[in-house]
């Protein structure tokens, strides 16, 4: 059983919150094949929670599904925050002047998620479940880490 954590970004949270069978599938996969946890980078909540109880119902069910004695959140450290800035800058340079600039702000949260994954990857393999495969994969490539995998939930 390999040490591996799953990290969820906002797209993955939406996908798994809306598809309980898929959430159960990933739960079984982790439980049976890996030694690790399903984690949510705390920064992701900034683009996920609305404060409207009706809108947050599915989100709350998902969080309940993975919450135990410890919260499922993984915190952004000072080092990871600084690293995210570097990764975001490199990604913007890589995407070039003709990129879709409406996505630039989303890239900040993506960079936080990848910087957290990079930090975790020193002590375990990491799978990032994401709705934004392209940008997350680019940022992971920029880290040079080979033990971070990126997958769209479905």
């Amino acid at each position, binding site marked *: 059983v390999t040490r591996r954590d799953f990290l969820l970004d906002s797209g993955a949270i939406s996908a798994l919150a809306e598809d309980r069978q898929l959430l159960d599938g990933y739960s079984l996969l982790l439980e049976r094949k890996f030694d690790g946890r399903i984690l949510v980078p705390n920064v992701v909540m900034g683009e996920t929670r609305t404060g409207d109880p009706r809108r947050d119902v599915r989100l709350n069910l998902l969080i309940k599904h993975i919450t135990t004695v410890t919260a499922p959140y993984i915190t952004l450290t000072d080092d990871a925050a600084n690293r995210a800035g570097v990764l975001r800058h490199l990604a913007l340079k890589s995407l070039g002047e003709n990129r879709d600039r409406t996505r630039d702000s989303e890239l900040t949260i993506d960079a936080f998620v990848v910087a957290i994954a990079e930090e975790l990857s020193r002590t375990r393999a990491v799978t990032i479940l994401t709705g934004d495969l392209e940008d997350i994969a680019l940022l992971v490539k920029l880290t*040079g880490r080979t033990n971070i995998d990126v997958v769209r939930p479905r």
Partner: protein
Amino acid sequence: LRSSDCTGPTSLCAQRCRASPTESVAGFFAFPSAILWLDARPLLGLEAGATILDMPKDADLNGSANGASPYPPVTPEERAAIDAQKAWLREMHKQSVAEGFDGTELLPELEAIAATWSE
């Protein structure tokens, strides 16, 4: 190491770089600051233009040559958190099955994807 140990060619950090580059690189995981990395680049024989804040790319500093895990042992706190979530996920699976959301049939598809993941 304190940051004050890590500057200058006669610093403790520089001495350790010469004595054991791998050990010193491992040290940068604990102190991944631009200053340390910048200071160490020439000692590690890296290109002068290497990006500051670049992380070492080899996760396998603990050795997997003999098939051992490349990762350090899980701490007691992590073990408790992992075991607690796994136990909870098993409970959630029972609830999902009871409510018609059994994910078992998706497992082969997800396992096939997971088989492509690197360690």
